[in-house]
């Protein structure tokens, strides 16, 4: 009897102006230290991308859609461009596919470094790991600037191929950057995964069982961190992923430590993929020209791409004009946020665990809001 009457629920509003909140308001209902409810209030960055894409042709449309996730623009642009290519019925040349895979894997490394750094900041490792990850992005950004001209939002993919070929002598620069990065990965492992503070904050925190992960709809490394081996690059290989040897990383435990370990090991796999792609890249044309004013044939296409945060799908329906009739984007972060909101119901969550759990799911709210 006294248990029930001593329950006092307090609602904390972790709002958009906060050092560690991002562009979201998270409402946390707590009773003492125990969390009863987590309610994400999103929509602070809703730009209406799906409506805008109905007014852009297939070459112009890459610009708004890749600004969905600024750290991972290549994978999202690839999803849109592949849907357009499927409706048009064309396939890009082999060299273009290799270039696309290399740029996509570099973006995966950039995104995982970002997510990793923020999760470390949430657990208390700001000066060391977060600033290391900021510094280690710079060599990759320099590489991307040599190839595409900008650091983050490339707009480099176009239906039919890529806009430009690799410049001369880029292979040596790639190999030098990857060698530097492998040393840094070793430093991260020693500083972070062999760190007692990180273990005590992240091990056995936010355990997600495999059945719950599928039932609630977790996406990407969060699904694989619970032992479910779903990865679009292996289930439905696109571009040249079927010619490259890599493995799908899973961890069985399902806690925050496992999810971050999956991201770390995926960075190691990405380095392997880039090395193989650079060695085996054939010579040849890099673009099959498609006019932006070309009328799309009537039809529809649903393309799936494995971005760093999970599977992203673009469903494009065309009614015969130059602009698509409807573009529906399947967002991975919206699925992950639902899992976070159900966490207090499936496991015990304390107030201090909320940032660790949230950042182990690597949310990017512009992706959920579109």
């Amino acid at each position, binding site marked *: 009897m006294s248990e029930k009457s001593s329950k006092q629920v307090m609602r904390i509003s972790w709002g958009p102006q906060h050092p560690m909140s991002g562009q979201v308001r998270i409402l946390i209902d707590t009773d003492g230290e125990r969390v009863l409810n987590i309610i994400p209030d999103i929509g602070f960055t809703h730009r209406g991308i799906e409506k805008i894409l109905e007014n852009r042709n297939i070459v112009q449309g890459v610009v708004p859609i890749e600004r969905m996730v*600024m750290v991972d623009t290549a994978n999202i642009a690839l999803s849109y461009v592949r849907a357009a290519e499927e409706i048009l019925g064309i396939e890009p040349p082999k060299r273009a596919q290799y270039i696309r895979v290399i740029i996509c894997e570099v973006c995966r490394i950039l995104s995982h470094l970002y997510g990793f750094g923020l999760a470390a900041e949430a657990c208390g490792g700001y000066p060391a790991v977060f600033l290391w990850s900021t510094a280690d992005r710079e060599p990759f950004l320099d590489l991307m600037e040599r190839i595409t001209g900008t*650091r983050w939002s490339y707009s480099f993919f176009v239906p039919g191929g890529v806009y430009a070929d690799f410049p001369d002598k880029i292979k040596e620069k790639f190999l030098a950057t990857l060698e530097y990065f492998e040393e840094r990965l070793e430093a991260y492992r020693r500083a972070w995964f062999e760190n007692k503070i990180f273990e005590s904050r992240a091990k056995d925190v936010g355990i997600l069982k495999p059945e719950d992960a599928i039932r609630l709809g977790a996406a990407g490394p969060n699904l694989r961190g619970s032992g479910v081996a779903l990865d679009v690059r292996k289930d439905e290989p696109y571009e040249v992923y079927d010619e490259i040897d890599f493995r799908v990383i899973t961890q069985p435990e399902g806690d925050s430590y496992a999810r971050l370990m999956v991201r770390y090991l995926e960075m190691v796999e990405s380095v392997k993929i880039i090395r193989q792609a650079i060695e085996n890249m054939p010579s040849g044309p890099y673009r099959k020209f498609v006019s932006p004013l070309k009328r799309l044939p009537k039809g529809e296409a649903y393309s799936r791409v494995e971005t760093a945060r999970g599977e992203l799908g673009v469903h494009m329906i065309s009614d015969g004009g130059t602009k698509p009739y409807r573009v529906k984007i399947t967002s991975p972060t919206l699925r992950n946020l639902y899992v976070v909101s159900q966490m207090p119901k499936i496991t015990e969550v304390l107030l201090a665990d909320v940032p660790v759990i949230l950042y182990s799911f690597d949310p990017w709210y512009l992706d959920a809001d579109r």
Partner: protein
Amino acid sequence: MTKKNQTRRLIVWDVFNQVYKKIIGWGRKYSLWPAHFITGCCCPEFMQVAGPRYDMERFGILPLPSIRQADVLVIIGVLTRKMASRVKMLWEQMAEPKYAMAIGACPIDKGPFYDSYSVVRADEIIPVDVYVPGCPPRPEAMIQGFMILQKKVEEGV
């Protein structure tokens, strides 16, 4: 008081005022503290500016958590209607002297989302002092934006 004493007083007061303004201007411009607040997708580039290569703390720019103690409100990226009401609230809570900066093409004139139904321009909500165009702007451009703001702060004391 004799006229000579009055004039002497005015001259001393004028010299003191000038020196005082110079010191205050130097102090204010090298300690512009923005509040931790991001609105849109230019934020990774802003984090690179805070990182080791383009270190912005050497200019005295240190993000801090509380809006009450902040000097400058930096709007980084897209400003939507839902966020605009919060920006107005934050602006009114800041203490004088306060400045505002709009980073990115989106808060200046909506950027690539020029026809969106829920994006607004930053100067429809708060008075902006410095605009930094780009999508996203290069780190050197953001630092130049801060230096222009520093000049404005020093001259406006």
